[in-house]
């Protein structure tokens, strides 16, 4: 259940990316649908408003037509176009040519009946008798005040409400989508936890029994075999430690003390000495004295162990490892097979392994990253394929 509590931490970056894409797409689609509905609703409201205006406008148009008729009859004497302060108007002949206009706009869509443009309502009517040659008359009145503000307020309110409901539905949908992924992680964590429990007792029994053997009395051949057993057991023991850390890391309380890094690194080199020997790795060390770090001793040891064990594991027989300790960093450089550039960013992900020829669960660097994160240490990996890898921990 630990994994469930921390599933968001455990999700790999690729899965997170998928989730982000899903959420973005979902939000985008939701907004698109909402915008479409809002557009339709706005159109309906606008049509309703125009319908309400239609009767008034029709009456005004008739008044204007009466004036045009009078003008037509007396055109020789009077040539002033009738104006009204309640509206602007224009007349067009049957070839849609403008005869006269007091409108604010030059472009009028004479094929429409009534429409809204630039905060004005345009009402178009066809004359029965073409006074002054006018077949179409257009009336322009300002749109009624605040009608659209009311609509926008309504739209915004309902839109936000519906969006929120859809977001909640999206959240449940996302959970549904994530369930198989989380189940897999839970399954894997539980499997490791169970395996770990089963490993603990036999490994401890082997290691403590080896320690009890008096190596002085053994002949060369047997000593070699015992050493091999020791290496193998330590490897298992390391793995056990890693797995325990992984499973219980959230429950382990850090006990930060001043750690002398030189002593610690030497200790860890000593611990891995048999492994170095077995792979005939040439070790060069350059450690500055008196460098201290306030950190949990076990965690720092785990961090170094993981980097060191990787440097050994992926090294070639007779390769080299160089360890240096300076005031602000530890650098471990190996002559191993290296990591592809495109995959360097993924090495810290749990269960990611790029080389299946050697053992492991792909959790080592994940542990390194989590410890580094806890103590605000920077981990930088430089690698050239076929030449080696340099891991640098700086603070």
């Amino acid at each position, binding site marked *: 259940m630990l994994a469930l509590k921390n599933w968001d931490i455990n999700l790999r970056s690729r899965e997170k990316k998928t989730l982000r894409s899903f959420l973005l797409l979902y939000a985008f689609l939701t907004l698109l649908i909402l915008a479409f509905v809002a557009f339709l609703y706005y159109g309906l409201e606008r049509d309703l408003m125009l319908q309400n205006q239609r009767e008034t406008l029709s009456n005004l148009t008739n008044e204007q037509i009466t004036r045009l008729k009078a003008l037509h009859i007396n*055109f020789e004497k009077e040539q002033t*176009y009738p104006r009204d302060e309640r509206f602007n108007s224009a007349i067009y002949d*049957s*070839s849609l040519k403008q005869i006269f206009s007091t409108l604010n706009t030059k472009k009028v869509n004479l094929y429409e009946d009534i429409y809204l443009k630039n905060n004005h309502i345009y009402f178009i009517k066809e004359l029965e008798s*073409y*006074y002054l*040659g006018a077949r179409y008359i257009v009336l322009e009145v300002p749109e009624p005040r605040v009608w659209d503000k009311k609509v926008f307020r309504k739209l915004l309110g309902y839109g936000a409400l519906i969006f929120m409901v859809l977001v909640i539905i999206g959240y449940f949908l996302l959970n549904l989508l994530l369930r198989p992924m989380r189940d897999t992680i839970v399954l894997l964590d539980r499997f490791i936890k169970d395996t770990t429990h089963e490993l603990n007792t036999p490994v401890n029994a082997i290691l403590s029994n080896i320690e009890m053997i008096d190596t002085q009395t053994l002949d060369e051949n047997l000593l070699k075999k015992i050493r091999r057993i020791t290496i193998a057991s330590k490897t298992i023991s390391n793995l056990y430690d890693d797995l325990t850390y992984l499973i219980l890391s959230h429950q382990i309380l850090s006990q930060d003390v001043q750690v002398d890094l030189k002593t610690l690194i030497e200790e860890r080199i000593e611990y891995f000495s048999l492994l170095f020997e077995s792979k005939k790795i040439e070790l060069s060390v350059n450690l500055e004295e008196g460098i201290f770090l306030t950190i949990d001793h076990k965690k720092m040891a785990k961090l170094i162990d993981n980097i060191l064990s990787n440097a050994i594991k992926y090294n070639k027989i007779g390769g080299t490892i160089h360890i240096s300790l300076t005031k602000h960093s530890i650098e471990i450089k190996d002559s191993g097979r290296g990591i592809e550039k495109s995959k360097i960013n993924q090495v810290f992900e749990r269960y990611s392994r790029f080389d299946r020829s050697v053992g492991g669960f792909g959790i080592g660097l994940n542990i390194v990253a989590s410890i580094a994160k806890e103590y605000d240490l920077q981990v930088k990996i430089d690698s050239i394929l076929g030449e080696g890898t340099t891991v640098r921990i700086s603070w």
Partner: protein
Amino acid sequence: MVRITFFFIFLAISVFARTGVYQKNCIPCHEDMAVKIDKFFYRYLLKYSSEMEVKNAMSKYLKNPKAENSILVDGLINRFGVKKKTTLSDEQLQEALDTYWEQYKVFDKLK
């Protein structure tokens, strides 16, 4: 002497003014009619609206005048009768109609 001068000036104006097809072929008859020529124009405008349609309708009537396609109301037709068919060529007729349109059109006259 003054009278003679005025007479000649008047004659000159009349002759010069009536150089166009419209002035020569339309005005003389219409001048004597009870219904003035501009009334015909506004009747056409009332029925046909655009320049093209007005001119087409006039041209059609002038080429083939009939009581049915006259713009005048029945009473007037009965009183004055239908005019004779035009003797003008298409080009001349068109020119006359153009002049007529220019003289009485509403465009640019409204204030």
